């Protein structure tokens, strides 16, 4: 059978892309002919920007008509550029066309805007619910991963529960690491004899990894550890502030280590193999691939009751409802007593002057990058040193067909081979000067 999957795909790094590559591999192993179409160019055979253009949706529809079956790994950004009412309404017919006329469309809902729909009784709300309900009923089948998500979908859109099937989240998951725990621990530098909790995934406020750190601080034993492993996926002030908090907590709480950096699929699994239990105190989630991977390797987990986590839980999973239960469950798993709270949940220390400046600068840089890409702030004269000019960036010539654009392109062709090395050299000198300046003020040897 020829199957088309519509989804993000590697090398894009997100949970759904990782999920899809496993689904595709499983389908191929079952003998199906699988093609993937991703919103952006990727390792998928096709790409079509179906969130931004109707043409993109129609391209997916054309591909779908050539397949026997179409699986859409749905989250709103896949098919809608924004949830702004006018744009949603404008793009909705194309998506409905795809769901209605696509060949045997199977919609797998990973995320949906439940909260913005539920309880809306005004006209706009009713129209919005009806539009979403239509999208959910047009496909051949619609599935979610957990009973909680099914309830949310029914409540938010009014769709009949019978229309929504349950699809095991980990049904297609493959093991990607050697299940030898001793070897994994050795390779990751974990000490034998210690009890290792693990919180792993992208570092984001809604993951609540800080809750796990605070809970660990209440365990009265030195051999219990918590490794927080992950990286920032999207830089934003909220996320950066959260990671700053994690760094500070990791420095304060004995037994906690924060491993910031990219985590490959294999390394992800190796961490799971190496740990004794996972701590997933999410504040907000639909369903968790991490929990499924923990189950794949037989590792127990402590999870909050957010989203569909309760439905995903198996006998080895402890579902907790607040921070006290979280600490108690971790203590029970590690076989240690609970001590008095060491850190108050709202405790916040005053930042040092340099720490505050660093955060302000980093956030300002993110904003600057958004509005004036490629530029940097003039060097600070805080130390009395001369300010350095921003780096030299040669602008790309315009793409248009007009005379002006053509002349600019010609000039660019004539001069770039001379200007580019000049700009590079100027930037090297600038960087050298900046390093010298930093070294001079930090007292480091040059």
């Amino acid at each position: 059978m020829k199957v088309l999957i519509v989804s993000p795909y590697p090398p894009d790094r997100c949970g759904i892309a990782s999920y899809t590559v496993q689904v595709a591999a499983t389908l191929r192993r079952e003998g199906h002919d699988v093609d993937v179409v991703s919103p952006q160019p990727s390792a998928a055979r096709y790409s079509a920007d179906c969130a931004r253009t109707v043409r993109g949706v129609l391209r997916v529809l054309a591909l779908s008509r050539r397949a026997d079956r179409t699986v859409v790994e749905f989250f709103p950004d896949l098919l809608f550029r924004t949830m702004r009412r006018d744009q949603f309404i404008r793009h909705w017919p194309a998506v409905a066309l795809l769901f209605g006329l696509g060949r045997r469309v199977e919609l797998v809902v990973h995320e949906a805007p439940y909260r913005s729909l539920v309880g809306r009784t005004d006209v706009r709300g009713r129209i919005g619910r009806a539009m979403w309900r239509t999208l959910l009923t047009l496909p051949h089948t619609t599935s979610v991963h957990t009973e909680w998500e099914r309830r949310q979908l029914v409540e938010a859109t009014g769709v009949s529960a019978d229309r929504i099937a349950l699809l095991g989240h980990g049904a297609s998951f493959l093991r990607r690491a050697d299940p030898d725990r001793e070897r994994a621990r050795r390779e990751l530098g974990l000490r034998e004899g210690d009890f290792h909790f693990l919180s792993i995934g992208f570092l984001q406020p809604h993951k609540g990894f800080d809750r796990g750190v605070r809970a660990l601080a209440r365990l009265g034993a030195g051999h219990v550890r918590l490794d927080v492993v992950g990286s920032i996926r999207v830089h934003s002030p909220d996320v950066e502030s959260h990671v700053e908090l994690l760094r500070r907590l990791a420095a304060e709480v004995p037994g906690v280590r924060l491993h910031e950096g990219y985590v490959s699929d294999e390394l992800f699994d190796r961490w799971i193999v190496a740990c004794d239990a996972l701590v997933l105190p999410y504040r907000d989630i639909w369903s968790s691939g991490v929990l499924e991977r923990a189950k794949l390797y037989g590792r127990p987990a402590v999870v909050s009751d957010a989203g569909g986590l309760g439905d995903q839980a198996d006998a080895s999973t402890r579902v907790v409802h607040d921070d006290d239960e979280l600490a108690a469950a971790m203590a029970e798993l590690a076989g240690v007593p609970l001590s008095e709270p060491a850190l108050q949940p709202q405790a916040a220390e005053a930042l040092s002057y340099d720490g505050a400046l660093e955060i302000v600068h980093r956030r300002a840089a993110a904003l600057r990058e958004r509005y004036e890409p490629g530029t940097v702030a003039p060097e600070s004269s805080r130390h009395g040193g001369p300010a350095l000019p921003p780096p030299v960036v040669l602008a790309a010539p315009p793409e248009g067909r007009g005379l002006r654009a053509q002349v600019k392109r010609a000039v660019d062709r004539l001069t770039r081979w001379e200007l580019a090395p000049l700009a590079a050299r100027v930037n090297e000198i600038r960087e050298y000067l900046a390093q010298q300046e930093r070294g001079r003020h930090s007292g480091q040897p040059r």
Partner: protein
Amino acid sequence: MGELGHGLRDRGWDVDVVTSAARDLYTWKNELPEGTSQEDGMCVTRFRTVVGTDRRARNRIGNRIGTGAPVPLADQYRWMNAGVRVPGMHEFLVDHAGDYRAILFAPYLFWTTFACAEIAPERSILVPCLHDEPEARLELFKPTFEGSRGILFQTEPERELAGRIFDLPPRTALIGSGVHPPASYDPEGFRARHGIQGDFLLFAGRREWGKAWPELLRHLDFANSHLPRPVPLVTCGVGEIGAVPPNVRVIDVGYVSDQERSDAMAAATVYVQPSARESFSRTIMEAWLAGTPVLANAAGAVVAWHCERSGAGLPYRDRYEFAESVRLLLDRPETRTAMACRGREYVLGNYRWPDVLARVERAIEEWT
């Protein structure tokens, strides 16, 4: 990598090759047949290349990367995925990576390595061919370097550079790169075929900015204006010659066979390596094997390292050192000869294929 594959096959390993159907690095046209075939005892599977259509974004982001300006991670992805992709190779490795004990990827900068090395990192061994360029510092490549099972470096400076940029995995090895000594050289034949008389400098490779071709012409222009007799520059390879300064005579012999290149190496008075972005520099090895001393850009850590270790090349830091090095090598044939002898010994002592293959074999056996 082809030589490596053949060498490992000859030593009893089952070697499969997965590659693209393209032949030309610049156009990436699918010129070779897709699918699986037996070539020289190896199973070779070729996949169709897909060239991104968003050239505008790629150029815009690429320009910023080239200047060393900060580029957001999302744009780094966009830049990478807007280039050449080989989705079929990705799919093949997703399905079959488990069939292999080790998968070697090279070089780091290509999408095939970037996207595919992370499919089964527990068996991915990277042969990065890294050199100091702005792209090497992109956050995009951290997973490739830091997540692979191990990394095979060609030189110590390459490993040091990687260590400065990335948190390297615990398994790295120095393997060098193999060079085949030609059966014979015909320097006089080369001169006769191309009508070249007297001393000349040789540059073999891609004539492009990244290889410092324009800088070489400028340096030679300066040198020739100070030498008693201007020395011509013979070049073979691809790329535009571009604007030639008044004091420089360039003789382009075009794209030549391996044997012809070896003859050119033997006929040259001095081989010039102006590129500072080399991860190994096979051409200076070929020059030394052919008995020709080397003049190399000292800004290139790798070539400077080779020159210092071998005592067979003069590194130059600016046009003044360039000119004086040329003068010295032209004036002192005995010095040239002594340097050339040391160079040949250096290559034969360090970079013979059997030695390289033994190091690769040892790494695979220990790491996987």
